């Protein structure tokens, strides 16, 4: 049913349709509306049988999910940023134990400095944990990805992170088609665990594994993600049969057929990029888009196929590998290694900085001309940065960096109004 609905609420409704049995939640912006909506559904009896547990920290949230999933219950939680880091030990534990927990990550920057707005640093900090990571472009895809995630995770017996941009998607009201319970039931069967704690058949889960077998166990996590590369497109196809729309999959391309310049990105910024590409195409530019939906497993083959015929590509990412450059860009580079393709990275939107169309128009033209920095930063205030670097050269007791930058910017804008 079509609804004009807040992204968080849509996701909550989608998750509820998947019949989770245990939901554990700790509040953190900007995921709060999701768990609040689910909590209300459980308390009101709409979502039953389901236990909703208000936990005392994100570490507890993931741990409760681990216990519940190991005991055979379909389990769900949601977090962001600091919360994801706080549960990091348990995140690795969940994938190491092969428990098919589904977790929404409402992508948000990691501090310090504390920042509640969107970028991809949180999810990407866990990219090697063994969790599958799927990125939604819009709220429809966010809902659809959760449904596919439960199915995918339970077939593989691995946990799945569904990533959606905090505030930009979670707090946006837009049109979403919420499926019916019948449709979801047809697509997602009851959870049939590969392993379960059961007094009738006692097993020990989580014992130590020595050097004799650790590599094999770890490899199997990798093998499962490689299986997912096959499974994700199959599940997307089945999704289309049941729900009637193309959604999710490994990657998507837009205006790519004869593109000489390709823009690669993940998440909601793809929407803005497509608008810019339409306008540039109308002006005769041969430019296209590659959107990555499945970040882990990383679809090396599909990325290579999408890029190998272009002349140059730009990875526009909301993440920064401090001391190196791009995170997504590094994975893309691996996909096209050996092709000799010219690749550029632009880091944009960190900490929720807006990515305006106008800036992208300018940037994409620079990429076409190959005059852009190999590793660039969109709309960075170089004056403020250089001022701070100079301050540090001059003075030993230069003070906290963040406060200095805010101070500089504050003074600058006050001067504007004189």
């Amino acid at each position, binding site marked *: 049913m079509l609804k004009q609905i807040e992204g968080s609420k849509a996701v909550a409704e989608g998750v509820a349709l998947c019949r989770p049995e245990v939901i554990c939640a700790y509040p953190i912006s900007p995921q709060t509306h999701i768990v609040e909506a689910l909590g209300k559904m459980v308390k009101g009896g709409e979502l039953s049988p389901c236990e909703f547990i208000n936990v005392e920290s994100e570490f507890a949230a993931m741990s409760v999910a681990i216990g519940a999933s190991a005991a055979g219950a379909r389990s769900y939680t949601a977090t962001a940023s600091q919360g994801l880091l706080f549960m990091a030990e348990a995140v690795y534990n969940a994938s190491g134990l092969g428990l098919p927990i589904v977790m929404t990550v409402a992508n948000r920057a990691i501090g310090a400095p504390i920042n509640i707005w969107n970028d991809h640093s949180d999810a990407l900090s866990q990219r090697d944990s063994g969790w599958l990571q799927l990125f939604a472009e819009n709220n429809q895809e966010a809902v659809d990805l959760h449904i596919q995630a439960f199915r995918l995770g339970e077939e593989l017996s691995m946990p799945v992170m569904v990533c959606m941009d905090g505030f*930009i998607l979670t707090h946006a009201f837009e049109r979403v088609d919420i499926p019916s319970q019948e449709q979801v039931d047809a697509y997602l069967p009851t959870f049939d665990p590969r392993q379960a704690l059961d007094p009738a058949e006692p097993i020990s889960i989580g014992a130590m594994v020595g050097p004799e077998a650790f590599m094999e166990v770890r490899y199997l996590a990798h093998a499962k993600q490689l299986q997912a590369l096959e499974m994700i497109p199959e599940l997307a196809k089945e999704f289309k049969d049941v729900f009637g729309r193309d959604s999710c999959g490994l990657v998507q391309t837009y205006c790519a057929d004869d593109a000489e310049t390709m823009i690669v990105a993940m998440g909601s910024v793809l929407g803005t990029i497509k*608008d810019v590409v339409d306008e540039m195409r109308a002006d005769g530019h041969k430019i296209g888009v590659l959107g990555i939906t499945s970040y882990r497993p990383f679809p090396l083959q599909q990325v290579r196929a999408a890029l190998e015929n272009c002349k140059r590509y730009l990875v526009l990412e909301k993440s920064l590998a401090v001391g190196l450059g791009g995170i997504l860009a590094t994975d893309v580079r691996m996909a096209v290694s050996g092709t000799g393709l010219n690749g550029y990275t632009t880091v944009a939107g960190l900490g929720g900085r807006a990515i*305006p*169309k106008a800036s992208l128009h300018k940037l994409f033209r620079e990429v076409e001309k190959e005059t852009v920095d190999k590793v660039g930063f969109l709309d960075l205030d170089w004056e403020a940065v250089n001022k701070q670097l100079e301050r540090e050269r001059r003075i030993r007791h230069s003070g906290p960096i963040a406060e200095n930058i805010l101070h500089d910017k504050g003074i600058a804008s006050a001067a504007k109004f004189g």
Partner: protein
Amino acid sequence: MVTAAEMLSVAAFLEGRFAQAFPSFGSERMGAPVVSFCRISDREIRLREPIMEPDALIIQDPTLLHQADVFAGFKDEGYVLINTTKTLAELDLDSLLESCSPDRICTVPATEIGLKHIGRPIPNVPLLGGFAAVTGVIQLESVIKAINGKFSGKVAEGNIAAATEAYQIMLAEKKASGLATETTGRA
């Protein structure tokens, strides 16, 4: 509490259009000026940037106009709807409004209307009713449907009455000042 932008998006949705409403990207602490946005289109909206060039502004608290730069990027022929009992002259906004078309700037006592029909000084819903009349971007019927979707019983009745009164006041003002009727536009 539903913001005016969200309800506006619902009204547009009910007319079969695409709409995207979202809160400002600025500080979200209580007491800070809050700006929310809405895009309406006949095609799927993919754009995610903040609204850089608004076609219309709905001002719930004119005292904030000197604190937040809402007129940045505002189109000269855009609509401005201000919640106030004062006249434009009394509001001392001449400098801010000088490049706007005078027949596109309207005031409506939305807080008072809200207090009268809903019993609470909330201008959201009356402002939407006024917006429907002034711009014609949405129909009053859609605003009423949106209200019924969110509220019920006496609360819904009160909100509908408030929206309708604001609509009628603005419609009368429009006719009186000979404003051009607009049936299309983007917010």
